[in-house]
């Protein structure tokens, strides 16, 4: 038997186990999944936890529950990948040889990468909402909040779900208004990028929202340190932003096993062909989800679309056939905007988010780049779809892995720019 080894049983790894269980030749291939943690988190739900909209039961289930029969599951830490010898060394010292390896080890927050972030203010005045523990602790802090300066902050790019901090700011505006605390709260959004919105059409269509919601934006802020004494963040060029409550997105990095294996870049993300999802240096290693360095968003929807392409390419590789350059960077994301409404984005490597309808051209029911109640209901329904359809790699009718241009208002200059690129 040949060994197909999947590292990581998060969103991406679990989907791959389910796809390949159905499609690979299991008389020839044995599939094994390795993950060190027992709990599977529905990470999009972390956004709702600080506001008491979701609790533990909404976002946590056992990982094993989603690994299909016929796939071996090892709950173990991976010490390192020895790519030259086609084997993985587990924390116990035991080795697992592989013929084909899929790395789905994701990304994690690394607050230790910023001087002072884990200081006295950590989980007292400084919180993240990208971890279960952080989102839970922030929930308590918000319920204790009496007013002051609430700073929402991004440390550096790339981060998982790049719209989440913006959604957090929108939801905070709504939640504080509801609790009669909005006029006592100064809401500040701090980003290392040149704007809260950076894509031309998004800036044009959605730019008004920050002013309307009275969110002050600080741009081009590259954090150097957190000053726990004076409760402020300080940039490399010595700009300062004081906070009473700092909701930060720490630096995101790939898993430590990538660094220990010498397979990653400066953030432990793994060099990956953006269209085939094959490792650049190793033909029998494939990557999926947040672990890659491809210039797509680090998001569950991206992993979902990648899974369909990667399944085809893994099967091609098993049969010695050429790979398909079929992944187009497709992402599809709901953006909560508060007051029971949301936006929807659908885009890829070359087409930025535009207006239109989705998934049916002219019909919807979802509207792209436009606030609607239906979009919000879509975001809420997604939790059920995630646990019951997506992770189990069941088909989602009408939602293809290639981004469709039908139903989208794509301005001429976007198409021209694409042609020139």
């Amino acid at each position, binding site marked *: 038997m040949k060994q197909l080894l999947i590292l990581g049983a998060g969103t991406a790894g679990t989907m791959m186990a389910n796809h390949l269980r159905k499609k690979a030749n299991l008389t020839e291939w044995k599939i094994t999944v390795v993950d060190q943690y027992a709990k599977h988190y529905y990470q999009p739900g972390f956004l709702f936890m600080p506001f008491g909209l979701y609790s533990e039961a909404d976002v946590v289930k056992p990982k094993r529950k989603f690994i299909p029969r016929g796939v071996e599951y090892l709950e173990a830490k991976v010490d390192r990948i020895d790519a030259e010898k086609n084997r993985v060394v587990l924390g116990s010292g035991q080795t697992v040889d592989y013929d084909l390896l899929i790395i789905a080890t994701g990304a994690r927050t690394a607050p230790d990468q910023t001087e002072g972030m884990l200081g006295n203010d950590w989980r007292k005045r400084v919180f993240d909402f990208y971890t279960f523990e952080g989102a839970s602790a922030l929930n308590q802090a918000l319920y204790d909040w009496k007013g002051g300066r609430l700073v929402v902050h991004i440390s*550096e*790019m790339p981060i998982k779900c*790049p*719209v989440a901090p*913006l959604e957090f700011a929108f939801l905070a505006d709504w939640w504080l208004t509801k609790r009669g605390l909005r006029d006592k709260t100064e809401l500040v959004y701090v980003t*290392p*990028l*040149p704007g809260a*919105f*950076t*894509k*031309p059409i*998004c800036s044009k269509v*959605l730019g008004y929202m920050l002013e309307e919601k009275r969110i002050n934006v600080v*741009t*081009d802020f*590259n954090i*150097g340190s957190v000053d726990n004494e004076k409760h402020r963040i300080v940039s*490399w*060029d010595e700009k300062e932003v004081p906070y009473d409550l700092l909701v930060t997105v720490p*630096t995101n990095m790939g898993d430590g096993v990538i660094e220990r294996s010498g397979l990653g*870049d*400066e*953030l432990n993300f793994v060099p990956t062909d*953006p269209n085939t999802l094959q490792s650049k240096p190793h033909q029998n290693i494939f990557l999926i989800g947040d672990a890659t*360095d*491809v*210039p797509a*968003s680090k998001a569950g929807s991206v992993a979902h679309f990648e899974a369909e392409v990667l399944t085809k390419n893994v099967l091609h590789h098993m049969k010695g056939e050429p790979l398909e350059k079929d992944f187009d960077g497709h*992402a599809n*994301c709901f*953006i909560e905007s508060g007051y029971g409404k949301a936006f929807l*984005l659908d*885009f890829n*490597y070359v087409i930025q*988010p535009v207006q239109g309808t989705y998934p049916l051209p002219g019909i919807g029911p979802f509207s792209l780049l436009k606030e609607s109640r239906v979009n919000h209901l879509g975001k809420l329904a997604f939790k059920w779809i995630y646990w019951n359809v997506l992770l189990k790699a069941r088909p989602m009718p009408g939602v293809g892995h290639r981004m469709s241009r039908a139903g989208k208002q794509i301005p001429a*200059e976007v198409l*021209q*720019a694409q042609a*020139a*690129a």
Partner: protein
Amino acid sequence: MPQKVINGATIDVNDEGYLTNRAQWNREIAAALAQELGITLTDAHWKVLEFIDKDFREKGVVPGMRRMNKVGDIPTKDLYALFPDGPIKKAAKISGYPKPASCV
């Protein structure tokens, strides 16, 4: 789409003056774009611009501070000294690449 004439050459740019067709870029254009930002290019600037070019071809995105630092061997303090206020977006503009962006 807006255009711009530099030293007699016409280049395509977006509303913010970033090149939309990298094939039109050359060192004279870089020098002119830098002048518009009040920067006179030196060898130290060129080290940054050349790293961005090499890295963009490899990764498909303009490198961030950490990557400039760790891979390009360019200290953050130097970046701010060379391209004050918004080093990455200024260096990206001069090197003919898009400004650093998120998905929205």
